[in-house]
């Protein structure tokens, strides 16, 4: 006997299977109407296309804006560079002038002036006395700087020597 009857109800019927079908058939599904409330909203497949389209549009607008800005700024840069060609007198004057804090500000102004396309820069001429005073001031600043450096290095050494525990802690943290 083969299993065709059990498989698809063809071929020679199997009496045991038939008997089981007859007995168990009493438990078969009895059709009942499906009870779904009328007010229940119908299932809808969510359509994400509008949201995706809006997001893509915004992204494209941002990209286009970025590209436009970058091309615009690039287009302006060469003109500025062409205009910025530094005038010869500026190069000659700046090394000879002693640098004091006040002069630094002036030199910054000069740079700004160069970017503002002002070719002519007024170069102040110092008298002998003024120059000596400037040199003195420079010396004082240099001494003050040296002193500060010494003090700083001293403080640094002290802090390193007095707190070996912290170093160990730090090593632990690193390790």
């Amino acid at each position, binding site marked *: 006997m083969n*299993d065709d009857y059990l498989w698809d109800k063809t071929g020679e019927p199997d009496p045991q299977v038939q008997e089981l079908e007859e007995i168990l058939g009493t438990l078969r599904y009895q059709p009942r109407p*499906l009870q779904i409330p009328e007010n229940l909203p119908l*299932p809808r497949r969510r359509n994400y296309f509008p949201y995706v389209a809006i997001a893509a549009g915004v992204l494209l607008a941002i990209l286009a804006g970025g590209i436009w800005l970058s091309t615009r700024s690039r287009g302006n840069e060469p003109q500025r560079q062409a205009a910025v060609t530094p005038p010869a007198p500026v190069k000659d004057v700046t090394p000879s002038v002693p640098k004091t804090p006040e002069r630094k500000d002036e030199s910054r102004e000069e740079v700004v002036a160069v970017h503002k396309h002002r070719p002519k820069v007024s170069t102040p001429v110092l008298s002998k006395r003024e120059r000596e005073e400037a040199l003195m001031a420079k010396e004082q600043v240099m001494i003050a700087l040296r002193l500060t450096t010494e003090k700083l290095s001293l403080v640094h050494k002290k802090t390193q020597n007095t707190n070996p525990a912290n170093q160990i802690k730090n090593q632990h943290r690193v390790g």
Partner: protein
Amino acid sequence: MYATADMLLTSPAPAAPKQSHETAIEVVLVRAVLEGDRDGFARLYDLYAPLVHGILLARVPRAEVDDLVQDIFFHAFKKLHTLRESSSFGPWIAMIARNRAVDFHRRSRETVAINDELCGSNTQDSRATEILELIRNLPEAYRETLVLRLVEGMTGPEIAARTGLTAASVRVNLHRGMKLLREQLGFMEGL
């Protein structure tokens, strides 16, 4: 003498055109429901209620099955938009039914055992309940296939098409499950 599993696996499946036809119907119905046709779901219910009933009958007490069938289709109606492949409605609702049966046992362990004994009102019914109990004690892979075949009257190819299992595995499950059931029945009659 019964066919071996190898013989069963090599046999052709004659109901292939019917399977594809059913799949086409279910695709059309699922799409119709998602487009707003409420009656389409009633037709899906008519097609798949025996499958869900059989799956539940293999797992939960008879008295609970009808209500659970309604619950499962109600749930499926609400969640139908989450179904990715319209052609997979059968396997999808079968999985919902299996999960619901597991949930049922988790929630009400103490009240399960006695219900089926109360159901047998006449001898035929009580005999059916006894055999169903034997089927429920078989390994899980066999019990569902046997209930769908012997209780719901579905053929092997229909079971394969609706559950999403391959025809070969359904055939093997039917063959081995039936063999075990015959042994159990012989043991019972011997008593």
